[in-house]
């Protein structure tokens, strides 16, 4: 029963965040009107209504809020999965360098104008996913070469070094293409602004596949968070499950990065708070991270565009401002606990 309230509460907060995200901004739209517009937009034969507010909501804010929600949900659930699999609460797409890896793929496509006819419009997310998977495999293999136990420090250090390296690669590519710099930097810092419905559509199939694949790994992640060997002893076919989890988390990260750039720490902060509030059982941690991750990024986006309006802050600034201190706190507690043990 308490689990029911947990889910219901999380969903209600998410709904409130969506309404706030759609309503607030340079023009404030009152709640009844939002609801009216949303119902009309959802109706099958909606009349072509020309209200300015309706157009703001449907064409600008709603896709932005939905995109923020989907990206937040993707990053948070993949963060939770990485952490369980690697038995490491500091692992997330950003600290592992996977986000940077996905950026390389995205930048390659965007700035070199790549397009593979068989993938059509999905060239961008698919390239991001491919480079994300490659980066992840490289980071894990390299970290394991340094330290067989895959300790927190080695893994994070490798991920961060990899991230900086890939960041330089991206800068180099940008310098060589000679494009306008501000736009690019904005993209790198991460944003869900002005992407429109196209990007929402681009993300949804990957979001659905990746999330479903992860949501059915709850019990396996519980066992694997005790260590891979222990999981085997408990009967988990670890090789297969590990491949599925890494692939699914990379699909989610790659696709999210492809549509929004690098948004750091979402995958770290949200699962951390969810574990504190709702417990560590991955059967519930995964779906709850998904829901609350969406809420978190919608609110972060809302803050980024309203706090010093009319100037808009990159959303990555907000998430890093919240995420970096939490990273420090987790690291501190981990070290302290192990010093005692």
């Amino acid at each position, binding site marked *: 029963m308490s689990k029911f309230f947990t889910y219901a509460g999380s969903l209600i907060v998410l709904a409130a965040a969506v309404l706030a995200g759609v309503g607030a901004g340079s023009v404030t739209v009152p709640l009844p009107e939002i609801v009216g517009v949303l119902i009309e937009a959802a109706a099958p034969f909606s009349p072509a209504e020309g209200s300015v507010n309706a157009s703001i909501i449907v064409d600008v804010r709603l896709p932005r809020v939905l995109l923020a929600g989907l990206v937040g949900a993707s990053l948070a659930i993949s963060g939770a999965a990485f952490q*369980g699999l690697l*038995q*490491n*609460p500091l692992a997330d797409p950003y600290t592992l360098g996977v986000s940077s890896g996905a950026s390389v793929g995205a930048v390659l496509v965007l700035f070199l104008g790549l397009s593979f006819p068989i993938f059509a419009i999905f060239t961008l997310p698919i390239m991001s996913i491919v480079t994300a998977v490659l980066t992840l495999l490289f980071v894990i293999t390299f970290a394991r070469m340094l330290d067989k136990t895959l300790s927190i420090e080695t893994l994070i250090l490798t991920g961060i070094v990899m991230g900086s390296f890939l960041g330089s690669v991206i800068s180099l590519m940008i310098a060589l293409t000679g494009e306008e710099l501000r736009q690019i930097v904005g993209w790198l810092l991460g944003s869900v602004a002005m992407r429109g419905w196209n990007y929402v559509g681009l993300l949804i199939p990957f979001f659905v596949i990746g999330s479903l694949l992860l*949501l*059915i790994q*709850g*019990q*396996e992640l*519980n*066992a694997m*968070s*005790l*260590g891979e*060997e*222990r999981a*085997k*002893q*408990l*009967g*988990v*076919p*670890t090789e297969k499950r590990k491949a599925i989890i890494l692939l699914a988390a990379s699909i989610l990260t790659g696709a999210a990065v492809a549509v929004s750039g690098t948004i750091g720490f979402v995958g770290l902060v949200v699962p951390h708070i969810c*574990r504190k509030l709702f*417990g*560590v*059982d991955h*059967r519930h941690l995964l779906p709850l991270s998904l829901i609350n991750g969406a809420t978190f990024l919608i609110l972060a986006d809302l803050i980024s565009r309203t706090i010093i309006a009319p100037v808009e802050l990159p959303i990555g600034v907000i998430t890093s401002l919240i995420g970096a201190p939490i990273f420090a706190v987790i690291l501190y507690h*981990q070290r302290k*606990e*192990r010093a005692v*043990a």
Partner: protein
Amino acid sequence: MIDVKNVSGGYKEAPLIVDQVDFSVRKGEFFGVVGPNGCGKTTLFKLMSGVLPLWGGSVSIDDRTIDQYDRKSLAKKVATLPQLQQSYFTYSVRETVMMGRYAYQSGLFKHPSAVDERIVDLILQQMGLSKMKDLPITRLSGGERQRVYLAQALSQEPDVLLLDEPTNHLDFSYQKQLLDELKKLALTSGLTVLSIFHDLNIASLYCDRLLLMEKGRMKKMGTPDAVMQKTLLEEVYQSTIDVYANPSVASPQMNVMPDYPYAADGALGPQLLNVSEEKLVFQTSQPLKTFSSAVVGAGFGWYNHFVNYHVDKSFDCSQPDAFMREKFKEWQLPEHETLAMMTAAYVTNYASRHIIEDDFSLYVVVTAGTSNAVDVLHGEKHGFIAAPGTVNTWIFVEGELSDQAFIQAVITATEAKTKAFGECEITDPVTNTTATGTSTDSLLVASTQTGTHIEYAGPVTKLGSRIGRAVYEATASAIEHSLKGKQL
């Protein structure tokens, strides 16, 4: 039940760690694996649980090799109790135990069934964990946590349980608790238990059979008695180990011997003896290995304070032990390092002999009275009375005596005492025949266990002949003193 046939294996980029190990364990057996660090015990267990691939040979459970089982069905047969480990995620006790049911759960979301819930609750209750089932596992003590992991392994409902040093990090009482629990399961539920042990004594106490490994190979397999052999263990562990009979149960006991020598503190001689009206006290700075029939400290033990206390003939002997311990406090003698005898003879009438040889030295102290003189052939004609001892003989040897030498020294000394009774023409007052001793004589042999090793102490050996002579002379002269002095 579990058949390990010529199993070999190891890790990537490393030499063979387990080399052609071959044994089988029957249902309900408690099987121990011992051996020095790095001999391949843990690797062997990883091969048996299918965590590591086999390089050669086969492991079968119920006549099916483990590669014929998929992971889940294997987890229903074999469970492993891991060494205590830290997890970064703090599950509750019940969540942790529920993970043991993984192999029984099906469906996309692996929701626990009613059966899973019931079995987990039952095991929590069996392990005494019901009360703490909702606590985070980090709030538990090491012993409780180990019980949670045992509960997790048992909730797999396995036929075979593998344990890798289950008593690591556990204090004495938890070790016993855990092993008793396992032994009970082996005996009552037919659970087959295979366990790696560091502690040879624990292994020998709990296991039906032991496998001793050395450098990845089987060195010896059999009952604890067959495996726990001094020369074998010394060879495998490369250190000095003594094997003794356990005083309480029929399992051998091992002691590791330090290789540094005891500092000998000069000859054991009269300078260490302190005589007063009420008692003789002999004190050494290093403890002596002692074999005696003393009131306090009988049997084998190590002592450095020896007391021979004079009491009146009418002394109530119902609780001499408690009486003497009270006295130790009064005299400020350390209770656990002090041995005590009692005598009705006047201790100032003692006699002693000090003999120094090249390879050992000997110091004998005797107090004697003859009032309870008895001919051993007519003992039954004397009613049994618990009375303070009359002839108390102390034999201190500087040398290293075997157990055999201790007992031979006792025999030799007793013969010498009897001889002294004969020569002094002491008679049994009841039968008027020659007495062989008194009814309450006591004896101790103590040795520094340093210097020359002495295997025998019978009357024709060098030590034995000196003991015989010294005890005879000291006893005769002590009897003479007591006859001349105050009569008892």
